[in-house]
């Protein structure tokens, strides 16, 4: 058994800790505000993406399930939190209706649909942000894994799943704000969303969630169960013949991963201030895959780094040369798959390992 916090994880968590301390200080307490507020929110957003990438790495990197629908779990978590934030608006909306969100008044609805009840309580929304994606993943996975849908077929039907959800959420009749989604949030737990302190608070919460998610994922993957997962990834039939109930392991990790993605979505919504059906688009879900592939699948920390890097590059490039972004992203997909099969982290550590013949446990694991 390897240590829970190996060198790689240690370095990353230290970096994350420094960031989480430095950004708030620079934003709130230093003279002249060297860290602008938007940078704090941006960082918070990246950290949510990183958590999402860790969730995907858990299923893809360790269990070989390439989900092209993880964006759906993320968006569902986001919607759960968005529904709470909509209820929080209360009478401050344009129609000043205490119970109905603006878009429902606009559509002429008389009362709150049943699935909106309970979302006025934060704890319920937070719970739902995990339960709903988890439940969907459980049901979907139960069917899929039991009938041994694997590989590319599974990828395609997960993509169809998120596509179907996107179409569904675009409909006004669904009661989730249709095209526009949920937006115009005012505050969370009584703290105004526009204030710097709330933004910092959300960013720190995202960092904590990422650290927690990383440690949880690490704890799961280094356990006995984690070893079986890797076996499933590398030789599914053989694992089954050895007597393991492969579909149970897959189902467990798929559901856990979906719940992590839901948490990431729930933290994402208040920081960007909107959640709409576009989050379900298959393109978004595939982008998550490239974060993981770039960072290195099966490395957890690499996935988080990949997410932050790509998201950061996207912010920069779409600002400077919007035309160039898709070229860059497309080239990244091709390059990573052809030239960096182990991802950037794998390549770097592989390079280090070659310099130092006495390889560390981390590289052994990366090569496994």
């Amino acid at each position, binding site marked *: 058994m390897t240590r829970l916090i190996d060198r790689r994880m240690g370095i990353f968590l230290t970096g994350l800790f420094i960031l989480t301390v430095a950004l708030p200080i620079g934003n709130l307490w230093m003279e002249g505000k060297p860290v602008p507020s938007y940078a704090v929110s941006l960082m918070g957003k990246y950290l949510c993406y990183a958590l999402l990438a860790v969730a995907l790495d858990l299923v893809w990197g360790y269990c070989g399930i390439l989900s092209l629908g993880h964006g759906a779990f993320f968006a569902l978590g986001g919607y759960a939190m968005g529904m709470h934030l909509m209820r929080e608006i209360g009478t401050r909306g344009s129609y000043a209706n205490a119970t109905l969100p603006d878009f429902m008044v606009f559509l002429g609805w008389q009362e709150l649909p049943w699935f909106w009840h309970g979302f006025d309580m934060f704890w319920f929304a937070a719970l739902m942000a995990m339960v709903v994606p988890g439940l969907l993943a459980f049901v979907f996975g139960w069917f899929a894994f039991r*009938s041994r*849908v694997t590989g590319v077929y599974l990828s395609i*039907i997960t993509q169809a799943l998120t*596509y179907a959800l996107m179409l569904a959420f675009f409909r006004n009749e669904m009661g989730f704000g249709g095209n526009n989604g949920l937006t115009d949030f005012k505050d969370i737990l009584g703290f105004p969303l526009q204030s710097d302190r709330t933004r910092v608070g959300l960013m720190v919460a995202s960092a904590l969630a990422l650290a927690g998610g990383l440690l949880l994922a690490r704890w799961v993957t280094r356990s006995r169960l984690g070893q079986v997962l890797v076996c499933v990834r590398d030789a599914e039939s053989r694992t089954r013949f050895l007597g393991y109930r492969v579909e149970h392991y897959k189902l467990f990790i798929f559901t856990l991963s979906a719940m992590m993605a839901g948490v990431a979505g729930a933290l994402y919504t208040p920081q960007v201030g909107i959640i709409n059906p576009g989050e379900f688009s298959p393109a978004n879900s595939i982008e998550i895959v490239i974060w993981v592939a770039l960072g290195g699948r099966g490395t957890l920390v690499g996935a988080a780094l990949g997410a932050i890097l790509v998201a950061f590059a996207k912010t920069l490039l779409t600002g400077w040369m919007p035309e160039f*972004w898709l070229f860059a*992203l497309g*080239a990244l997909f091709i390059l990573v798959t*052809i030239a960096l099969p182990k991802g950037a982290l794998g390549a770097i550590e592989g390079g280090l390992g070659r310099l130092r013949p006495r390889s560390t446990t981390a590289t052994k694991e990366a090569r496994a």
Partner: protein
Amino acid sequence: MFLRALTFMLGLWVSALPLAAQSFDDLLTRLPQGSFSDRATVVSALAATGDLRAAAVLDALGAGELHVRPSDGALLRVTGRGTNLRGTDVLTGDAVEVAPRSTEAVRVNNSLRRTVRAAMGVLTLRDPDPMRRLNAAEAAFRAPDPEQLEAIDLALDAEDDARVRAALIQARATTILRGDAPVAERVEAVETIRERSPRVVIAALAPYRADTQPEVAEAAADAVATAERTLQLWSQAQNVWFGLSLGSVLLLAAVGLAITFGVMGVINMAHGELVMLGAYTTFVVQNAIRVHAPHLFDWSLLIAAPLAFGFAGLVGVAIERGIVRHLYGRPLETLLATWGVSLILQQAVRSAFGPNNREVGNPSWMSGAFEIGQLTITWNRLWIVVFALVVFAVLMFVMRRTPIGLQMRAVTQNRAMAGNMGIRTSWVDAMTFGLGAGIAGLAGVALSQIDNVSPNLGQNYIVDSFMVVVFGGAGNIWGTLAAAFSLGIVNKFLEPYAGAVLAKIVILVAIILFIQKRPRGLFAVKGRAVEA
């Protein structure tokens, strides 16, 4: 209006009888007098005279432009107001000087206007132009007036044009039905009317289902029910047609994928973008034709098709040689890399042609529609169905009957052995991929006729076409055909109940569930190849 009045005038000299003319003049003098209901009686009587001069009078009356000059009782048609006042004698059509306030309008209300319109219909039954008589008979059919039964009978006696006769018989039937004729006659009228097309039958007979005479009510109800059943059948046929049409689009989008994914096992996420390239090729070809050789426009699609096939095929070969070749045996990586290609192609087209929709025209032989019974079929949809089937047939021929097809199948079934037999496997890979890509280009030519040509064109089809291939069973091109058409038809049958978006969602969920049941598709390839 004036010309029409003049035509009637000409008819008048020929056909007017002295006796009719006598009573006609009496009626004319009575027209401006009395109440609205008196006037309605006079109008019907005027029409019943069959005198064609009445048409001009009634026309002016209906338009509210009929005036009477109190000084001599002359009927004038007065248009305009103030200094632009212009008058015409309704009987002779001569221009008449009219001083303001020297005439009084003959007033009309809505019920009188209806009477006038019906009366006009009867009068036109005598028009020398058969087309106009036909229209008048149709008008009398739609708005029957029992008082005009005699006029219709007279017209029927005099009629010798078969089509107009048929229309008059129908008009006579509705008129009898509307009036208080004996039961037997009215039931017979219902039987006459039910020979018409179902929609007309429903419109004409639906009110009589509650008739006071039970026999009539029963006959009408029966006729309406039959018509509704017929319509229902036609609407099912229409759904099937729409489904076939959608299925042909799906088939076109998916059949190339059936080669790359189904036969080679390579996930090509850039497939949709190859379709888009085909559509843009069509756009470029059409533009060139518009500028250099406008007379060739009708041929533009036939010129574009081979070019689109070639261009998309070349891009496909380039993708295979440059990227896919390095990733054989790693399907998930192939998926990601080709997704990258699709992003690049999308952005390249967006940079070159702009993000907006591009206009691709329909050649003349693809625009318009024709009808079979109650079924409306547009030419472009029909040609796309034909095109999809032709593409499919040619593809099957290539795969089954040509050396290259044989080699393709050999390589996909057993690469090593095919290599030992002297087949250049890597060359065959490139050709197979190119073939799939080229067919995507052909699909683009067809889709440019019915969809928006924009950089996002391919994105709209990628999920659908994967669904079709997976549903049909990868590796089975016939399965793709069956899957495309069955998904298309099921989709169109769901749409009336669930709406377009919900129907699509239902289909997606159904396929997801179906794959759970039969992970290898509808027509799974059996045997050892499955595990390979």
